[in-house]
């Protein structure tokens, strides 16, 4: 096996056994990036020098008998996370040249755990999109089929794991932005409970919905990454002060106890949506059977306000974005238009030229929804819907441990297929964004391939702070499905 193909868990064993060095691993991945990323374009910035320096330091520590869970492991970060001394663009021209003076809390935590930062991955500008086609720099291609999108907005991070351009990566999920690209790229992605992971240093899109999570090759790696990322942070008041379990213990729980007695709910409203691809449906029910074979009781449940979720989400998220993105004014950092004659002109031209179309569309939508006279009808109404969606889930979890569904209605679509149709694009998030509205955790794991060979994901959702249930069930399904053909030929 080549170094770049190693899972995090296997790399850890080999590093600790001194069979390989971190420099070997990082060098292999840098070479792989060099040879493959020209096609995929998963990365915006590759920090070759920094990565090798960190790898050498990790090797010194390993030589001294030191070991921490991520020591020497090469990871990639969605370029929405601030990295001290390393350009952070949010895939926006607006932030060209912006170099943060601080690390996001998750970046600090990864570094403390010994991880090597390979670079920053591509995304839809400011995480607004579902295909990574909205990047201000370049599109990212799906490693399974270069004329398909990798999904989004964490498309770069998902594609990088799938194409084996890093061992693991971080994404962010505001309405499905980790789970949907993970599904489209055939990798594992989890959005933890809102508050599980600190948002400090994550450039805000919609602060009440944003959450950071890992994208990995398999469920075991996800558990290892969660251990490194989760925990209360005094710099983010919304990060919850709750105990963090050892998520790898959920794997052992499956090994010793299986899934017998677990109850899984299928929301009837999800499976009756228009445009649900038959391959997706088939793969979903195949997995349901596997779960049943493991002793999981599967039953139908109802999330009655599902129909309103997309509309409410596309009021709340743009509203928060319109205010969060007000700070990019071209004065102290990033892009500035130099043609305008006066201050207001400079603001206008900077924003018009610095932000892409989708970002401008959402800022304008949000500003409208918040403006005097419309606030109650739009933002006020949407927050009520949000409460109802939360209540739907609370009621559902009274009768089941996890809720299961497809991740997206279809496998990855073709590049350019939906760019002129934002509404269709928005509807691809229908299965994922409810969990963001309710603050719940959700995981996407590969469950098969469609006729075209593109991967299909399976989603599991759990109650607040019950990631253990997700990891255990996802691990069980992963082991039982035992998919072959896990990675694209490259």
């Amino acid at each position, binding site marked *: 096996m080549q170094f770049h193909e190693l899972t995090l868990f296997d790399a850890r064993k080999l590093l600790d056994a001194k069979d390989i060095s971190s420099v070997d691993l990082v060098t292999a991945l840098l070479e792989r990036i060099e040879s493959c990323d020209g096609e995929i374009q998963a990365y915006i910035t590759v920090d070759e020098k920094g990565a090798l320096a960190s790898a050498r330091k990790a090797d010194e520590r390993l030589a001294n008998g030191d070991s921490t869970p991520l020591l020497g492991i090469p990871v990639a970060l969605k370029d929405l*996370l*601030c990295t001290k001394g390393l350009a*952070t663009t*949010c895939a926006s021209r607006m*932030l060209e040249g*912006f170099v*943060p*003076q*601080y690390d*996001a809390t998750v970046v600090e935590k990864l570094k403390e755990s010994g991880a090597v930062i390979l670079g920053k991955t591509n995304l839809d500008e400011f995480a607004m999109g579902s295909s990574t086609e909205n990047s201000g720099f370049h599109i990212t291609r799906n490693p399974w089929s270069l004329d398909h999108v990798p999904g989004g907005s964490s498309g770069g991070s998902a594609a990088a794991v799938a194409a084996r351009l890093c061992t693991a990566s971080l994404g962010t999920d505001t309405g499905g932005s980790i789970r949907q690209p993970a599904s489209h790229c055939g990798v594992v992605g989890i959005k933890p409970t809102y508050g599980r992971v600190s*948002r*400090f*240093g*994550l*450039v*805000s899109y*919609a*602060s*009440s919905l944003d959450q950071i999570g890992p994208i990995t090759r398999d469920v075991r790696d996800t558990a290892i990454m969660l251990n490194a990322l989760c925990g209360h942070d*005094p*710099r*983010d*008041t*919304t990060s919850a002060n709750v105990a963090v379990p050892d998520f790898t213990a959920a794997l052992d729980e499956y090994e010793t106890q299986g899934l017998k007695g677990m109850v899984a709910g299928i929301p009837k409203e999800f499976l009756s949506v228009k445009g649900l691809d038959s391959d997706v449906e088939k793969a979903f029910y195949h997995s349901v059977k596997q779960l049943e074979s493991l002793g999981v009781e599967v039953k139908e449940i109802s999330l009655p306000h599902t129909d309103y979720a997309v509309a409410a989400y596309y009021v709340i998220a743009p*509203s*928060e974005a*319109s*205010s969060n*993105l*007000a*700070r*990019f*004014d071209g*004065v*102290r*950092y990033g892009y500035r238009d130099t043609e305008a004659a006066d*201050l*207001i002109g400079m*603001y206008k031209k900077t924003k018009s030229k610095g932000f892409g179309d989708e970002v401008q569309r959402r800022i304008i939508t*949000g*500003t409208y929804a*918040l*403006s*005097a006279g419309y*606030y109650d009808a739009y*933002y006020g109404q949407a927050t009520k819907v949000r409460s109802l969606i939360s209540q739907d889930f609370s009621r559902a979890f009274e009768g089941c441990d996890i809720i299961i569904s497809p991740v997206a209605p279809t496998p990855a679509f073709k590049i350019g297929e939906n760019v002129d149709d934002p509404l269709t694009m928005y509807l691809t998030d229908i299965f994922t964004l409810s969990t963001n509205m309710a603050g719940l955790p959700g995981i996407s794991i590969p469950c098969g391939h469609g006729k075209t060979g593109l991967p299909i994901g399976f989603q599991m959702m759990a109650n607040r702070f019950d990631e253990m249930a997700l990891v255990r069930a996802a691990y069980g399904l992963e082991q039982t499905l035992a998919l072959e053909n896990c990675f694209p030929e490259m």
Partner: protein
Amino acid sequence: MKYEAVIGLEIHIQLNSATKIFCDCANTPGDDPNTNVCPVCLWLPGALPVLSREVLEKATIACLSLNCEIQSESAFDQKVYYYPDLPKGFQLSQAHKPLAKKGWVEIQDEQGRPKRLRLHHVHMEEDVAKLVHETEGRVPISLVDFNRAGTPLIEVVTEPDFRSPHDAMEFLKAIRNQVRYTGCAECSMESGTMRCDANISIRPEGSDQLNTKVEVKNMNSIHHVGDAIAYEIKRQIDAVNNNEPIILHTRLWDPEKRVTTAMRAKFEGPCIPDPSVPTIVLDDAWLETMKSRLPEMPAQKVKRFVQDYSLTHDEAVLMSSERGLSEFFESVVTHGAPPRMTAGWIATQLLPALKAHQQTLAETRVTPQRFASLIQLLEKDEINSNSAKSVLEKLFEMDGTPEEIVEKFGFRQVSDAADLAKLVDQVLSDNASAVENYKNGNKKSMGFLVGQAMKASRGKANPKLVQKMIKDLLA
């Protein structure tokens, strides 16, 4: 037609917490520019606000001092507007759910009758950065100092209960005194730790309608607020009499020209609940703790001073006007000095002397104990008031008890009858014509004769005894 003014005030008060409201930077905006800054108050991408506990406590205590109802739930909103002093593009302020509602402040109206002015609410918010306009060579440039960005403010929004500049000025004095009492803020309009905007409209006297208001800003003292309101009322009456419409807008007070000038149309941007600062939930136990930290307020203190120390209302108001002064007064009384004499001497002698020496009560050598001893010497007739003034001066200059100073400099009053009789005999024989005048009914001559006796004693004679002796001798 006769018009009356309808006035409401918006008062920003900077709290004196150690840190800014959402980060750990020092709350000392006067330091060298851009030294008290971090990613949070520079509002850099990815940084998140974390509400300071101390700011919440001080804001709550300030609200309690204004008789407000503290809300069990309050929250911050993002108020969006664009200006270079706010590069984040929104200000964190409690627009929808303020920390406190209602509340009132009592003043005396022009006729001296008590008048209660109501507050609508009090909310917390962050201050913006400060713009500094300079020139670079001949090019005008604007610089931004972020030391002030994120410093904690409370904004007091009143009901439109004010009818005159007098109301507004008395209200500002009262609110300043009350909040200062809590020790949570300096409340100086001159240094900018208290700022006041006035919303003014007019209507026919007796009407209860609310007409289009004009906002007036940029008043740097309580007097400016009074002057600006008076000017604006007259301007609006003139405009209405000339059939000119009153338009909703903001005007600036120009203290040089003593006029208000139009600045901009009033802008209301979008506003959204801030998701990063969670809803503030206050329970009763916490509120009780805050209430226990609220000192006795001036109004209660006035009542108690009148009751316990038999001060007149005016004396009590004066002794309660500042917390430090009231504590000094009570401390002197506790050391055994008679209250009314103490109040009189603080007002007429100590405060002017402090001013002359450029000292404050907190730092002066004239401690309550020393001052009390001085007042007691005066009360027991051991020194007369002339000598007492001299002793007070010495208290500023040197250590030692007033008794020691009296001994050292020979200020003790002469009350010995034999000594005084000798002195009076001498004065009467030296001033025969004045004695004659007095006997002919010119009572003013008595003052002259007593004065001569005091002079002869080099100020140490007991003037009351001297007067009695002269009166008896010439009767």
